């Protein structure tokens, strides 16, 4: 048993962190937030050059053939730096969907381009103000043509294709749909976190190709979401820890009543509470990473645990970081709000806390090992 990342994985972490620092990823997140760009192309290119989009893609499809542990390490750094790129959509979701369900032809078609960063993919699932279930998805596929509307699709406006959940003959399936055609109408949507773009996508008879089968569509979808949950959790963990460190640094330098506010017990205990949530989340994420990398039967439980724990840690740390900064924390000028916004976006993208808590208990009921 060994519950830490290897030396090689730690080196990968260091080099990704260094690159993101050099590129001033946080500053770029602000530029995207304040400007018209959907993402930072320069930063995206740097991620691609480092081979990060190719991390888990097998060598036969021009990938690096590394494991998911490496991808977890990368995700944590992207979260820590708020990197404004479509990495989570394209890598954790679209690429993983193809790796999981794609036929050899589909893999040959998509994966080398994804590895080289030539195309961007996303995952289109939400349709309304409620979480998607097997019975409320209204996007339909008939004879390969897809019709329906998806909302709040992350990076929908910059993606070349989407993995779309839809119903065919009463069964849920996952379909790859090319977005660069007249039958897919894309409208950018304003969100709480403008550092990451989202879009509404309407399909009016666009061509779609099924990934895997509809017989196991719902199970496949949940498997994909479980895998992505661990990667999202690492990104959330990185963000949570960044907020904790920001709060600490600020409190050490900010004086009130003749003392650094870091010397007040109210602030120290707030930071200790943040540390506790971060440590619990990190520990759960490590187990999630292991379950993901070994395709363990415990993945559903480990994934939900990582997801819930990391969502909680990020929420706690991003809100209390603002609180620690006082009025400054509420200003546009300070970076606190960037993390607060990203926290909400990451917590929303693959399903709410309530849903993942329910999944967690359901998976424990199924496992019935207690």
């Amino acid at each position, binding site marked *: 048993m060994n519950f*830490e990342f290897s030396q090689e994985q730690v080196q990968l972490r260091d080099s990704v962190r260094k690159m993101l620092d050099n590129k001033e990823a946080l500053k770029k997140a602000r530029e995207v937030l304040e400007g018209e760009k959907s993402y930072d192309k320069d930063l995206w290119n740097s991620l691609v050059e480092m081979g990060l989009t190719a991390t888990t893609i097998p060598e036969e499809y021009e990938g690096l053939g590394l494991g998911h*542990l490496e991808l977890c390490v990368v995700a944590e750094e992207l979260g820590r730096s708020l990197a404004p790129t479509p990495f989570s959509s394209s890598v954790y979701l679209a690429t993983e969907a193809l790796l999981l369900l794609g036929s050899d032809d589909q893999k040959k078609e998509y994966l080398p381009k994804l590895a080289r960063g030539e195309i961007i993919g996303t995952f289109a699932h939400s349709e309304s103000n409620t979480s998607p279930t097997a019975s409320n998805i209204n996007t339909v596929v008939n004879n390969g043509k897809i019709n329906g509307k998806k909302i709040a699709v992350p990076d929908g406006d910059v993606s070349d294709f989407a993995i779309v959940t839809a119903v065919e003959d009463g069964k849920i399936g996952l379909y790859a749909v090319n977005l660069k055609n007249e039958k897919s109408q894309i409208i950018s949507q304003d969100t709480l976190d403008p550092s990451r773009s989202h879009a509404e996508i309407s399909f009016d008879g666009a061509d779609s190709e099924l990934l895997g089968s509809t017989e196991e569509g719902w199970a496949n979808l949940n498997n994909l979401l479980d895998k992505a949950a661990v990667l999202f959790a690492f990104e959330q963990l990185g963000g949570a820890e960044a907020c904790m460190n920001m709060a600490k640094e600020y409190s050490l330098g900010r004086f009130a009543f003749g003392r650094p506010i870091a*010397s007040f017990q109210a602030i120290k205990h707030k930071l200790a509470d943040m540390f506790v949530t971060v440590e619990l989340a990190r520990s759960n994420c490590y187990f999630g990473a292991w379950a993901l990398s070994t395709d363990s039967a415990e993945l559903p439980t480990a994934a939900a*645990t990582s997801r*819930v724990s990391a969502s909680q840690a990020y929420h706690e740390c991003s809100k209390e970081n603002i609180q620690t900064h006082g009025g400054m924390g509420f200003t546009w000028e300070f970076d606190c709000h960037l993390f607060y916004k990203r926290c909400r976006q990451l917590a929303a993208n693959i399903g709410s806390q309530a849903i993942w*808590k329910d999944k967690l208990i359901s998976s424990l*009921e199924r496992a019935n090992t207690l």
Partner: protein
Amino acid sequence: MDFNDTTDETKFREEAFNWLSNNAPLKENPKDTWKPASEEEGLKEAKAWAAKLHEGGWACLHWPKEYGGRDATPIERVIWGQEISKFKVPGGYFEIGQGMAGPVMMMYANEEQKKRYLPPLAKAEEVWCQLFSEPASGSDLAGLKTKCEKDGDDWIINGQKIWTSGAHFSDYGIIVTRSDPNVAKHKGLTYFFLDMKSPGVEVRPIKQISGGANFNEVYFTDVRIPDEQRLGEVGDGWKVSLTTLMNERLAVGDASGPDFEEAFNLARGQDLNGKLAIENDSVREKLADWYCQASGLKFAKYRNISALSRGETPGPQSSITKIVSANKLQEIANFGLDLMDNAGILRSDDRDAEQSMYQYGFYGAAGLRIAGGTDEILKNIISEQVLGMPQDMRADKGIPFNEIPTSTK
């Protein structure tokens, strides 16, 4: 990263399980825990079990073999913990002696003393307690007043200790006292071990909120301790105490009482408003939170063990374990009793083991949040020692102990 056993670890796990199978009953379910008829009976059974563990080579896993331990690796300790949790075995009497007094004796006692005292402690033939807190010095431990004065080759101890778990059945104790009230409070302390049967030691039980009396007040009237039973230098008692407290937080870490698994099983069997409680969304949400905490603590411990395996020393990070587990226990106990509705308040020692477990947890958690460092002190430790934030402002800093204002009220 590998959460599976290596070949050697698999072998160790099998060896542990086989030995346990031959010597103890497997739990029939998670609720099936050891519960003695009385404290006296419990102590007897626990001593018999500890002797068996020692005979089989499973006592004090982390201690050196020469003192009655096993020289086990940190990972082996985790594996042993996982395996023994499957069995219904006694526990709860020797943690302080084996977890705290033993390690401090190993560090500070002379070789002759180690050979005399450690093996009987490992076998639980002799039981130890820890005499630290006083009525006016709990969290502010260094403010203690029990004094020691040199008299020839001996020291004379006078004063009072409190919250001393197991003092009424202990043979020996470790104690920190004030040797010099004219210097700043941390500088005038000296540490000893003593025979609890010494003349002048009086143990008075304290009735707790549970109605039981697991801990005591201990009074010292002209108690004589030979100088050779001093641990560390004169005036260095604070340093020795900190070593002990670090070990305490490792030893006390796990709360006993209902945890996630028990709450999960209760919710699956308990009716709530005409349906099973597990089908209630608010119940599911609470359970998910507790699972995340329990799982986070488990893997945080494993990460800590991995760090230990690489030769790193245990950090104050382990303080989070007690904060989280004590609070979780308090919430789970309250939840379990709540599910039992109005009947949850009926004391049920004799009729329902499950209800009784929640009731003990309900009382015990309130104490656990204080014992071995309050939540508040532990949060200070995390913020100061882990995160590097400034120490609290101290009005008594640098002032000779006998000039510091005090009140016991």
